[in-house]
């Protein structure tokens, strides 16, 4: 027998099938139907926005990985997720050059600054969005109605603004489509400034008329269910976010129905569903402990409703998630799992329905069920 080469590795000698790339790839796949629906709503402007923002994110990621300032690599799909999510949170007619700025900032300040994948404190997509919200407050508040005629052949005029130039207003353009300027307001803005509460079912499907909303919450929830079932996303966080937002909104609604909208409007308007399913569940910026996930999600839901009701902004999901991101290391610290043998005494199986060994009745069983019998002195 010839002497074979002996390889030595430390146990375990088998490895599970999941990898970072695989998780990220599935998240990207699950985002594709949402993108398709978004493009169906807003036409080529939406398509251009998604392509430009994602491409900028990938270029920025490439540059930072190349220069060695951050870990990870292009093929891990994390920059794609950042880009697509960022594009989905921007208005469809957002000037493309501003979208590129948002993408660059998302990767540079949101990710590379901290050291790349795994090290970022804040969700990179939301960092990018927060930056453009501060830098271009008018453009980011300018929505256009969905399902306009000719959306697949014609850009929304503001999309094609030249870099560093003020984008063209959309009011005249809407006039030419026989729609008034108010049609471009989001349901949340309408509620905040005019007190009009939209129908929750219409919001859920996004299909009725020319309402200015993002992708359908129903579709996002469906994609989220896919991710949760395949365990590419933690199911606890979206449930905690939506549960706590609904509970807070319902309590306030029950307190004063005239002043506060119904909880369903709160759930399905704005970016709450997208935020709960795709933003809050970002693995890197959410707590790692199961109990911590509940706390973190609940915090986001509560903050969202509070910001929406009591601040000058119509939308609060972004800031709620960013604040919870910052709190997540602290949440993790106070929600460490209970180590085996250190928790409350376990329940004895005796008497429980599945207990098979009934023959034990004959054997002498001392009546002690809990930890540490007292030693006989």
């Amino acid at each position: 027998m010839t002497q074979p080469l002996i390889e030595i590795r430390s146990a375990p000698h088998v490895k599970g099938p999941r990898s970072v790339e695989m998780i990220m790839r599935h998240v990207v796949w699950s985002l594709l139907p949402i993108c398709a629906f978004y493009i169906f709503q807003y036409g080529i402007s939406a398509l251009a926005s998604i392509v430009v923002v994602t491409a900028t994110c990938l270029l920025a990621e490439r540059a930072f990985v190349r220069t060695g300032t951050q870990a990870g690599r292009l093929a891990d799909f994390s920059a794609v997720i950042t880009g697509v999510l960022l594009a989905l949170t921007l208005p469809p007619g957002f000037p493309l050059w501003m979208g590129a700025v948002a993408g660059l900032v998302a990767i540079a300040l949101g990710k590379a600054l901290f050291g790349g994948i795994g090290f970022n404190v804040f969700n990179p997509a939301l960092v990018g969005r927060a930056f453009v919200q501060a830098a271009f407050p008018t453009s980011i508040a300018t929505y256009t109605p969905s399902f306009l005629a000719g959306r697949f052949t014609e850009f929304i005029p503001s999309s094609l603004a030249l870099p560093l130039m003020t984008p063209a207003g959309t009011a005249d353009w809407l006039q030419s489509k026989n729609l008034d300027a108010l049609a471009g307001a989001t349901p949340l803005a309408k509620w905040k400034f005019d007190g009009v509460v939209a129908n929750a079912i219409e919001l859920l499907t996004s299909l009725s008329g020319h309402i200015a909303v993002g992708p359908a919450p129903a579709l996002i929830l469906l994609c989220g269910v896919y991710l949760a079932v395949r365990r590419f996303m933690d199911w606890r966080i979206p449930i905690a976010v939506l549960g706590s937002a609904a509970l807070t909104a319902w309590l306030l609604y029950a307190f004063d129905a005239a002043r506060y909208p119904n909880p369903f409007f709160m759930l399905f308007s704005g970016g709450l569903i997208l935020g709960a399913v795709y933003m809050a569940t970002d693995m890197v910026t959410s707590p790692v402990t199961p109990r911590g996930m509940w706390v973190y999600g609940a915090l986001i839901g509560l903050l969202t409703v509070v910001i929406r009701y009591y601040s000058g902004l119509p939308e609060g999901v972004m800031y709620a998630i960013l604040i919870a991101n910052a709190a997540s290391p602290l949440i993790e610290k106070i929600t460490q799992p209970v180590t085996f043998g250190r928790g409350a005494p376990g329940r004895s199986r005796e008497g429980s329905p599945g207990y098979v060994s009934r023959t034990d009745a004959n054997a002498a069983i001392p009546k002690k069920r809990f930890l540490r019998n007292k030693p006989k002195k």
Partner: protein
Amino acid sequence: MKFLNYFRGETFARGIHPPQHKETATMPIRRLPFAPRLIVHLSQQVGRPARPLVRVGQEVVRGQPIAAAEGFISVPHHAPASGVVEAIRLHPTANGPWGEAIVIRVHPGSTQEVLWEQPQYLPALDADELIEAVQDTGIVGLGGGVFPTHAKLKVPKQWPVDTLVVNGCECEPYLTSDHRIMVEHPADIIAGIAIVRQLLGGPRAIIGIEDNKPDAVEAIRACLPDDGSVSVEAVPTKYPQGAGEMLIKTLVGREVPPDSRSYQIGAYVQNVATLAHMGALMPQGRGFIERVITVVGTAVERPGNYLVPIGTPLRFLLEYVGARDESLEVVFGGPMMGQAVASLDTPVTKGVSGILVFRGRDVAERAERKTYPCIKCGECVECCPMGLNPSTLGMLAAKREYELMSEKYFLGTCFECGSCSYVCPANIPLVQQFRVAKRILREKAVA
């Protein structure tokens, strides 16, 4: 509604489900012939090495004691075959450092017959005599712990044991040696249980077998004594069900507190293979000279469950089962916790329950996978059977904060089952880092 079991707490929390690969489960136990030379290490157990009783050149017969226990936490060793003591010299071990071993040149005509025994009537013995009788067989914990069985049987009087948990889980993928023992030698297991019950004052005994081995459950159920003192339970198949603490949690519903022994909560765990050997050897007063080992893996042409004499060199065994390739990974034990062996001259020792032989190219893929920084997905937290936070521990290990790991994150509780490393999508060597950290802490504590 098996699914509901997890909510009823009928098994331990968390854990993983790796592919089982129990292809050898249906293969009967076969005898491996004697190798031309058998190498019996003096230290195959936890505790002090044994003291040789033979001189170089001395003739020994199969079953004869060739090394005596040195103190209480030690076991004697017996000649696995008839032959001549060729040398007493250093030899490679699975753990790395070389250890002193007795090399026996086997007579070409050595038979399988055991030529040295001291039959005894066990029920007549008192506790101390019985423990001595266990020690004389040289049995150690065959589940992988290799702690001398007689020393484990010496439970302090102030801790009454009410349940003897018999561990027939064999939760490691690939391994089927315990499975075959349960199917083929259930009576020996029952006899072994009787001995342990006699020693512990007659507690009830529950045999826990993972529900992927229904034939083993049936075989043992057919042999149960009529008085109902021993029962069999099928437990959910989940890694690491075969860890003592986990099985106690599953069968008895109690958790062993940290830094405690299981008898302090009234439970006592023993592996089925250990009990089967006690039941088979002790009435005859024979020594422990051969054991069942599952030899399997991608490089093995003739996998199976072999009855291997202790001291068989790996090279001989691999040749017999037809394992050859340009590069091999040879593992003593299971794939999750087993020890990779560096030299083919390493002999089989008492604690080896399986030998896995993988072709180098099959394991290369895993080795070449990229390691990412922790993405905090929480997979490890959701699989750690001990309820630790491997994610945080891993980050602390990278920063060499070993004291903090031990004080605030209970590193000492980790029993290195490897679940965290198995699931980690970022391919971080978590349990490997913990092993290093524990080792460094131990050395610091000694210094």
